[in-house]
């Protein structure tokens, strides 16, 4: 890894345009690079540890209270008053909003958007464009519509075609997926197994999309069942010429609402598990397909190519996430750059985003061991993963050299704000092999103390038991 040019990086100040755990990690990355930062918070988040972190580690202009994380004017006003030269959007909120990225870079007082260029976000952030681009490059995609559908009759016709296609393929129980076109992160997706159900589900998704995303467009595509959800981590610098990959992740353990709960890197492990296909070949193919697309668009930041891999080993591209993802740390944990093991993809994103060259090639990146990430969430897995609302009284864990925990939950009692997801912490566990990883994962979960209560005085619900149960199944198809 090249040492950043201190003078150029020190001339910058980063606006941390996000909250919670990712805000802390962005601030930590800034501290590591020696770049000052400005953080923001909303009144609901006043107890969050990211507020404390900003006050403790930031200097002048370290923290401002804003009305919303999703109000671009608030972010711009704070950036101007504090002298920020760049904006890190984290994930969610403005991370994949090309209009915001364009505004940051085109306004009178120009700043740097610490993500891909707005044109790339526009091109790849749209599921439809991504699908078209992928098809033009011979990258396999899931059968279905290649533009948002607004007309009920047209939607029904496409659904009929997708059902017929699956029957022709010999699929006994064909399923069709209805997705809010403007959605993401597993929101606004339902499946139907019968064309007679289609209309009511379509209307429900359309109404939900209109309420949540202000866009009624939906996508209709084949629901591939019995698959693994894989990801390829890509990073490129501002030249857009030399993107490299940081390996694969397996994110198949998800809630019923298709929200990720446990991620593992690398994506498959044939040394312990048996697969009905050549897993190394599949991983290599999705990496190469992803890099082909990244090179084609001149990808210039961190991004994730999301894949479905069927039991037969057939990969289909789902979408591209043009942002840093929650699970970036699990890839960083197993990666080495020129032999160094302190890889921080957020710091890499900031450093290269501010104009530093990548400074290494694919040959300089190696991998060591396996890692998993647990998402600790206040929810009831037995009750359809319903979010739990209340106060966290205690969150404690035992330190280990193989463990990293990131959380916005402070040491004092913490009321979970209902405005956001009830994610409490991320725990990343590393081990030299899969069996040891499972043991260490269970050690962490068994040692973990997570207690709380709700307004009725009832004890908190969480997903620890669910994570323990799933630990035994990681990387199994």
């Amino acid at each position, binding site marked *: 890894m090249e040492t950043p040019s201190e003078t150029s990086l020190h001339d910058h100040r980063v606006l941390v345009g996000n909250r919670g755990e990712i805000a802390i990690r962005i601030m930590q990355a800034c501290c590591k690079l020696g770049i000052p930062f400005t953080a923001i918070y*909303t*009144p609901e988040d006043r107890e969050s540890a990211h507020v404390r972190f900003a006050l403790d580690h930031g200097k002048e202009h370290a923290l*401002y*209270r*804003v*009305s919303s994380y999703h*109000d671009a*004017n*608030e972010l*711009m*006003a*704070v950036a101007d*008053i504090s002298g920020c030269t760049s904006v890190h959007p984290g994930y969610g909120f403005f991370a994949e909003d090309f209009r915001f990225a364009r505004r940051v870079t085109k306004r009178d007082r120009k700043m740097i958007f610490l993500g891909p260029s707005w044109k790339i976000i526009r091109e790849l952030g749209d599921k439809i464009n991504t699908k078209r681009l992928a098809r033009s490059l011979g990258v396999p995609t899931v059968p279905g519509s290649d533009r948002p559908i607004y007309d009920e009759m047209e939607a029904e016709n496409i659904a009929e075609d997708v059902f017929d296609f699956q029957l022709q393929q010999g699929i006994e129980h064909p399923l069709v997926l209805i997705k809010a076109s403007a959605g993401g*992160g597993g*929101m606004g997706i339902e499946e139907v197994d019968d064309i007679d159900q289609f209309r009511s589900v379509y209307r429900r998704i359309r*109404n*939900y999309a209109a*309420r949540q995303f202000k866009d009624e467009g939906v996508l209709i595509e084949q629901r591939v069942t019995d698959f693994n959800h894989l990801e390829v981590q890509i990073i490129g610098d501002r030249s857009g010429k030399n993107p490299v990959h940081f390996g694969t992740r397996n994110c198949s353990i998800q809630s019923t*609402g298709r929200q990720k709960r446990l991620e593992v890197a690398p994506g498959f492990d044939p040394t312990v598990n048996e697969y009905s296909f050549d897993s190394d070949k599949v991983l290599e193919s999705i990496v190469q397909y992803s890099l082909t697309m990244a090179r084609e668009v001149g990808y210039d930041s961190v991004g994730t190519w999301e894949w479905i891999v069927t039991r037969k080993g057939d990969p289909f591209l789902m979408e591209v996430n043009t942002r840093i993802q929650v699970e970036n740390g699990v890839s960083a944990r197993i990666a080495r750059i020129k032999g160094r093991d302190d890889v921080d993809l957020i710091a890499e994103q900031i450093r290269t985003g501010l104009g530093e060259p990548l400074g290494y090639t694919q040959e300089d990146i190696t991998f060591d061991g396996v890692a998993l990430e647990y998402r600790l969430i206040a929810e009831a897995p037995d009750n359809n993963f*319903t*979010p739990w*609302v209340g106060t966290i009284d205690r969150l404690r864990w035992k330190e280990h050299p193989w463990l990293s925990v990131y959380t916005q939950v402070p040491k004092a009692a913490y009321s979970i704000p*209902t*405005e*956001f*997801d*009830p994610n409490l912490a991320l725990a990343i566990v590393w081990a030299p092999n899969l069996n040891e990883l499972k043991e260490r994962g269970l050690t962490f979960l068994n040692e973990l103390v997570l207690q709380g209560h709700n*307004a009725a005085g009832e004890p908190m619900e969480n997903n620890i038991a669910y994570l323990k149960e799933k630990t035994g199944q990681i990387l199994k198809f």
Partner: protein
Amino acid sequence: MLNISDLLEQIKQTPYREIVVSTPHTGVVNFASIKSGDAVHGPEGQWKERPGTKLATLTRERNPKPIFAPEKGVIDTVHMEYENTFVECGCPLVTIKHHLTREEVESIILKQALYLFRAPERAKYYFTPEIAAKLRASDPGSVVIHDGQELFIMSRMKRELPLYYSGPEGVIYATYFKTNENVDTDAPLIGVCPQEELPNIKEVIMRVQTEWQENA
């Protein structure tokens, strides 16, 4: 049975409400020419189309946003120390002492007279599309609901859940929540009046109309 006279007397003991006008977002504050003791008015007109007294201007990203008095009253405090400075969201600018109006007194008393169906959790609430359509198309106080009816969509943390009404059959007489705004746990969502009680409610309104003196 509700003792309206007692309630009115209680309210008359402290007929004021203190309103703190805070900044809705960040920006640079410039106060209008106001001072403690000045009388201000709230929005007026059939549709409240005429804004209240201008208190300050908050400028953000070159967009000046006038901040008006939300209600009639007398200015108690002006935080002049913020003049021409950049302030955060939620910064208090002006405190207004507001004399309760008839509608506000009615609302206070009705909250004791009506059956209040409360928010089980802090969340955003919406009427189901069917109920919302009925409320739009019907006269106020004419949409009848019954125990067990699916009435609301409760939205929080990216989840939407149906919420069923539990309580006496009656008409939706008052709605206490706004679309897209969070409602705290136990805050009332709607006030329901059993149809046979409607005459009593009308009497409450009549009493307040005749007995409550509003400040000119």
